[in-house]
């Protein structure tokens, strides 16, 4: 039997996320992400009626979807998929049409105001290719972020996914994300519209 193809995935164990945003900052340094835009960030909410209030965190990044709407949307094939499942952007060919951004259900993409192309998390492909780990994973203070080859049953990511109930963002979109969450609160997974309905 041939070895299954490598498929990069990230598991974020929210029980261990301390909301420090070391991930956000390290990602910006590693990838030279300009001010005001973020490849990863940590969403945080407060839930409950006083005084029964709890805080929930949700680190966010590109899901490197198997069925990636951004990939489908890109009219010039600047967005592409690597052998091991990472969705990347070819900055030399991105025309900056922003359709991928409209198409991504996860707000994962943005325009790099300096480079003037679409941009998003690369799974730190430049590091991963060298046998290293993504910057955010390496510096995750709580140890929430775990990265690896999910097709290797011996890997930690595979084991975490196998041994825990995991969630993905907006499964109804059928994008098949490869960022898995353990212990996410439903209230933080998507958008909230209650504020909007009040109108003005």
């Amino acid at each position, binding site marked *: 039997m041939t070895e299954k193809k490598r498929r990069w995935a990230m598991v974020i164990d929210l029980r261990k996320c301390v909301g420090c945003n070391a991930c956000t*900052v390290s990602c910006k*340094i590693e990838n*030279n992400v300009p001010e005001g835009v973020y490849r990863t960030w940590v969403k945080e909410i*407060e839930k409950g009626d006083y005084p029964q209030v709890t805080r929930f965190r949700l680190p966010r990044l590109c899901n490197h979807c198997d069925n990636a709407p951004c990939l489908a949307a890109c009219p010039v094939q600047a967005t592409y998929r690597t052998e091991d499942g990472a969705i990347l952007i070819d*900055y030399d060919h991105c025309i900056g049409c922003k359709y991928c951004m409209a198409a991504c259900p996860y707000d994962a993409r943005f325009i790099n105001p300096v480079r003037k192309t679409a941009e998003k998390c690369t799974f730190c492909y430049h590091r991963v290719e060298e*046998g*290293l780990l993504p910057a955010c994973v*390496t510096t995750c203070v709580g140890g929430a972020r775990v990265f690896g080859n999910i097709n290797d049953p011996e890997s930690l990511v595979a084991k975490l996914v196998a041994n825990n109930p995991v969630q993905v963002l907006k499964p109804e979109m059928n994008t098949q994300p490869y960022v898995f969450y353990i212990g996410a609160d439903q209230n933080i997974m998507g958008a909230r519209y209650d504020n909007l309905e009040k109108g003005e």
Partner: protein
Amino acid sequence: MNRRDFIKSVATVGTISALGLGLEQFIPTALGDEKMASPTPYDHDALPVELHIDPKTGKVDLNPDIALKNSVCLGCWSNCGNRVKVDKKTGKILRVLGNPYHPSNAEPHLPYNTPLAESFKSLGQYQDLGITQRATVCQRGNSAYQIVYDPNRILTPLKRAGKRGEGKWKPITWEQAIQETLEGGQLFKEIGEEQVIEGLRQVRDLKTPLNPEEPEWGPKANQFVFIGGRDDGRTEFANRFVTKSFGSPNFYGHGGTCGGSRRIAFLSFLDTWDKKPHMKADYMGSELVMFFGNAPGQAGAPFQPMARKSALAQADNGMKAILIDPILQNGMYTSPESSESSWVPIRPGSDGALAMAMARWAFEQKKINEAFLSAPNKEAAAKRKNPSWTNATYLVIQEPGHPDFGKFLRAEQIGLPIPVAPAAKAAATSANGAPAPAPVPNYVVIDKASGKPTLYNQSEEATLYYSAKLSVGGSDVLVKTSLQLFLEEANRYTFDQYAEATGLSKNKIFALAQEFFRHGTKAATDHHGGVAMHANGFYSSLAVIMLNALVGNINRKGGSTKSGGGYVAIDKGKRYNLLSFPGMAKPQGFKISREGRRYEDTPEFKKKKAAGQNPYPATLPWSPIADSLVGNVIPSMMAGYPYNAKILMMWMTNPFYSTPGLFQKDVENYVKEPKNIPLIISVDVLMGDSSMYADYIIPDTTFYESWGVPTVWNLILTKVNGARRPVVQPLTGKTKDGQPMSFEAYCIEIGKRLNLPGIGEKGILNAQGEPTALNTREDFFLKALANVAFDETPVPSIASEELNLTSLDQELNYTSSSLTPEEWQKVYYVLARGGRFEDYDKCYDGDVLHNKFPKILAIYNEKLGTTRHSFSGEYLPGTACWQPPALADGRTVDEVYPNSQWPFHIISYKPRYRTGSYLSNVSLLRDMAKTNTIEINLADAEKLGIQDGHSVKLITPTGEAIGIAKVRRGVRQGTIAVEYGFGHWAAGAKRYSMGSKNIPADSTLGQGVLLNLITLRDPSLKSPHPLTDLVGGSTDRNTTKARLVKL
């Protein structure tokens, strides 16, 4: 062109487009202005990788262009390790990673003898080592390197060229800065100031009294006042210079504005006043940790270990976290395993009430650990497998008016026979020349078995509660056990009263107590600034600490730990004596901050007493058992009490910004007038909010350019000594002899010119007592590292492979004179690993901690109980108790500022993306938070018609501030919270000039509100003075009452 051609050409273009279908390579290159290569998989803008690890074999290949240097972070004052990635070509820091050897970076950390090459695997995929051996730095640790490259860093000495605070500076030479600050004179004649200023030489006078009429205050040298920052591993150098070489007692850290009263409460509990031990909960072994205002994911000392261990403990070990805090801070990690974690919104300043109520409940419900508390000595405790013991059963004299009131009863006072201590044994314990410990007094307990007064070490089990008269020296004297005193304090208030004080229901209090005591020794409390930084901070802290004594968790896994501490470093070590030196000065007299000595010892008291006056109250309050009362320093100067200062020197601190209740117009005016403080020298890396008022600014190296031997504050159960070294060449200018301009270079130069002891060719004695040099900063810190390397079992010498990997020998060549070759090989070993670290398996010995606090614990503290309040003249309670926050005259804050007029409490808390007043110039962090907000509960906001983003005005008895509202669920009703670290008026937010160079202001650096400008002062004092905890010395920052208005 005919029609046919036309159509044809249209068709062609169309076909080409239609058939193009991505096959761009078929298109003539003329059409393409860029390379049509296959997609670029690598990010052009990403950093170069530091190494390559073969995911199959684990083979590591370093990138030859990159150096990885293990050092120590100071992004906040936690002193975690780090591994700095430096571009060899440019010499610049590219990124900062964690050091897997350092216990603050990794859980567990690598065994110390792991070869360096192996340690690189903690970055990679190989065997998932990058996950299991992950070594991290936090958000600030990642980004703080940007301060090195702040374009407005101060790199040469500056001299004031306009009025103080006016923002006019001129760059001067190092020599001029040394010369003028040393020799004084008419330094500012050129700008029309005729005043003759005394320099360090004139002020360094250890003979002439500063006040000839009351010489006891001390010599003139005391008028050199030094304010330094938190321990960054250089502080001991500063302390040595100021107190031991220069001879002034006025050396301050920022303790009094940091967590002062908590530290002092621990000194009281641990009855240790020479060193500064304190305790934290051992999260990893705990079932329940009650965080009293010390949320582990928010700030914390040390931040990283607190955040990580609390998260892992909650997720993996099911530790419950109860956050007792007016604000729902980060720290409950919503792990299902710890689902009973909860938030308890307590009324600010009332932790003492809650803790005492919990204690009362435990006494009533018989939930205290009697087996632990009733052991009167170490041996008795050990028999019951308790790794610690207390003075709970010791008798205290409580007879009013008795000359020994508040003292422990001594066996000799009631004629108990005293066995002669074997002298030889005592001598043996004090090997290697350390001063022999003072003999233990002959405490008395009531032996449980006999019911009789017994010498404490002759009883197996003693009575816990006792209150009776004993015949002492012929008269009946009331004595009580320590625990009895504590019990009486707990019973002083009813549960209803406690409930009212805390704003919590009685049932909530009972539930909390039940939960806490249910877990026995696997429950512990943890606290810091939230409890301590109130006018009642000391007793509240002590009450919170005491809960640990009641469950008996000290030195136990999952209980309270004093931490592993460090190896001998800046001390009397195996290689060098960095503790003392020939000719060392012993500061005389009183400290300007009115701390550390009793009011009763002052000339003022004596004079009043002699004149037959009531000596109480003192002119300004005294805090005999506290230290580091930095908040009192300027107020003392302003009052001229006990004396005023001639030279103020600041280093690594920003006291005008960081001291609550201090910097109002009156203080600013005082500081601006050179007649008041004739010379202000600041050592800073940028034009800080305080440094802007200096006369001279001396440049300093940032922590990436400095040496330091810091340990970790606490929470690490194993021994830690970080080794901070310059990982980049300092950007500051160089002195004539090639030293980078820095604080150390300045002190050494001054010391040499003044011929101060402990500095220069013979500055440091080695272990054999021979003099060695202290000419450079390396001389000092490398010798400290040699001590570390040789302590206990010396570390191995560095392997040649590791030397090749690090090139340390080449890098440190310029300092080779500091150590002997043998020392070098071991110091390299330490430097290569970024410090010396005890192995993780030394955390526990079974169910107890490996590194224990070795002494008795004080339920009652004699020193405390025999100290008088300098205003009322009354004795202080010697055990924990509930006292509401009050002014010096005893009136409570709520009495003076009633809720009817001041319905809100405002409190501040530590910024996540800044450190104190520091790091506002780090753009990466500003990108995370540009400003703070005025946080208010949803219900309060609705009442006031306030919504998110509204502009609101905070009004306090001392001032007003305008900010942006943030409406939250997780804020206590009736409380307002404002994050600290914002609202700068300088540090980049104010324009200044340097010669002809104009440094414009960047207003984004100053956004937000600084609460310290409007926090309470003590209106019962005659001169401007922050509200202070007179016992523990904290400058109150969290008791301020306020109103809020929508704008």
